[in-house]
């Protein structure tokens, strides 16, 4: 710090104490012979006159606006209630899934899903609680239980689920080179689980490969449906005050969205959306891709998606699916005399929902012939 700086500060402060007309003389005295110093102080005095409220309003920085996240909040090692997070095992537009250890009343490992910020936690939890009773009444070997729900310290909703150590159904089929018949068998088992839930009045609303995990029991692949009850609880409602400009975060899974879901008319989604999603799943299992190209979907605007889904998707799906079934029958090397019969007979019908219903019927028949699990 120079002596000059110091004096500039002192002269400035002193000058302000004097009435304006006395300042000039004061500067003459104190800055005699030092034009630099005088200029400095004069500039400062002028600035002071203009200062007004400058910097008087301190940065409140975080005012009136919702920030999504400043870095990750929950992380391995953290404790949420009686669960200790161990490691992250999944991530999506809706939030993050952790492997966690439940401490009490029993010690066991669970899957803990924390929903991203931006949701009205109270209503998410409320919607979940409304279904909780019904969910608790479900007891099916292919349905993973949701064990608990709550809010984290940071105010975000979380769900605790039975831990399913498996891989998603499409990956399982591909990695293990499952034959058409084996894929159909898996599919029928999934249908059986969904039908069971529907009979209890519970709709999944978000059936897609990542919610269908395949595990092995005695060497046999068993699909397990996860996330029952969560999609409904976390479903976003559109309000006219909110802008959604980040497409994928909002839309969820367009490839699996049924026409009535895409419409977002506010009408209650019923079991038909699940049936539709199952049809898309079957298509994917048989052909290795969804009826609509995922990449293409991502680049479309929301309105276009709605239009396509509502008008054409189902038609195209149905056509594609029944072609797939045609090929399936051709590749089957045995005479179909079990539950597949009616399913494959659908190939003439060109209605994917019809196909799925036949698969559900097949599940009832075929169930008896599979080992008890």
């Amino acid at each position, binding site marked *: 710090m120079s002596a000059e*700086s110091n004096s500039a500060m002192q002269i400035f402060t002193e000058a302000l104490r004097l009435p304006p007309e006395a300042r000039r003389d004061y500067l003459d005295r104190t800055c005699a012979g030092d034009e630099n110093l005088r200029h400095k102080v004069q500039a400062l005095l002028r600035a002071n006159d203009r200062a007004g409220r400058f910097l008087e309003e301190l940065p409140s920085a975080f005012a009136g*606006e919702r920030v999504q*996240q*400043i870095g990750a909040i929950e992380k391995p090692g953290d404790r949420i209630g009686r669960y200790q997070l161990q490691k992250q095992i999944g991530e999506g537009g809706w939030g993050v899934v952790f492997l966690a250890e439940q401490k009490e009343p029993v010690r066991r490992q669970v899957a803990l899903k924390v929903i991203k910020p931006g949701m009205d936690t109270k209503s998410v939890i409320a919607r979940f609680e409304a279904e909780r009773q019904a969910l608790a009444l479900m007891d099916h070997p292919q349905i993973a239980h949701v064990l608990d729900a709550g809010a984290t310290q940071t105010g975000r909703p979380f769900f605790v689920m039975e831990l399913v150590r498996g891989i998603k159904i499409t990956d399982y089929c591909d990695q293990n080179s499952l034959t058409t018949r084996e894929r159909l068998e898996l599919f029928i088992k999934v249908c059986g689980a969904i039908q069971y839930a529907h009979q209890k009045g519970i709709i999944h609303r978000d059936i897609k490969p990542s919610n269908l995990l395949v595990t092995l029991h005695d060497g046999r692949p068993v699909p397990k449906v996860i996330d029952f009850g969560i999609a409904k609880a976390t479903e976003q409602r559109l309000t006219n005050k909110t802008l959604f400009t980040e497409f994928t975060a909002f839309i969820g899974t367009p490839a699996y969205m049924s026409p009535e879901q895409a419409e977002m008319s506010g009408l209650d989604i019923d079991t038909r959306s699940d049936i539709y999603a199952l049809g898309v799943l079957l298509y994917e299992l048989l052909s290795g891709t969804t009826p609509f190209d995922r990449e293409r979907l991502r680049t479309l605007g929301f309105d276009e998606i709605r239009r396509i889904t509502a008008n054409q998707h189902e038609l195209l799906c149905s056509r594609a699916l029944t072609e797939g079934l045609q090929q399936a029958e051709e590749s089957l090397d045995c005479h179909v005399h079990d539950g597949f019969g009616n399913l494959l007979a659908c190939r003439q019908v060109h209605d994917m929902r019809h196909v799925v219903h036949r698969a559900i019927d097949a599940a009832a028949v075929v169930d008896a012939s599979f080992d008890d699990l």
Partner: protein
Amino acid sequence: MSDATVKLEAVERGEPGAAEDLFVLLYAELRRNAAVKLARELPGQTLQPTALVHEAWIRLVGDQNPTFSSRAHFFHAASEAMRRILIERARRKRTERHGGRYRRVDLDGFDPAAPSADEHLLAVHEVLDKMASEHPAEAQLVKLKYFAGMTNEEVAEVMGISVSTVKNYWTFSRAWLLNEIETG
């Protein structure tokens, strides 16, 4: 003994890198706490930097009988950390306004006055280091008052000067900064 106290003592002993360590610790703590509070999403919420800084003090040092100079080190480091957080945020907002990545915005909370507060923030930040080389005490005061939101009395205590000196420094600083921003 808390992590922060250990680092504070290291700063006092003049250990190289100790100040940097302290800064990093406070930066992480303040940022995390801000995120926690923001996640609560209370309507109409304004989150004050000064609240975050004081909470960090209580949480990290609180009952550990810090010395006077420890306290000074803490608040200086905290105000620098707060400065960085505020600047990062202001820059990100500026990028977004100019067509960068979009985020979901709640129009109810939109405050058209906010941009100019951010502009001041960024402008002050840019000239503050220059000020510190010519007027270190005054610059330190700006950091404590403006970035950490401390009151005149609190600043006086941390810097070990009188309240009237604080006020003089503040008047001078505003004039200096305004002049530098407009003509520099």
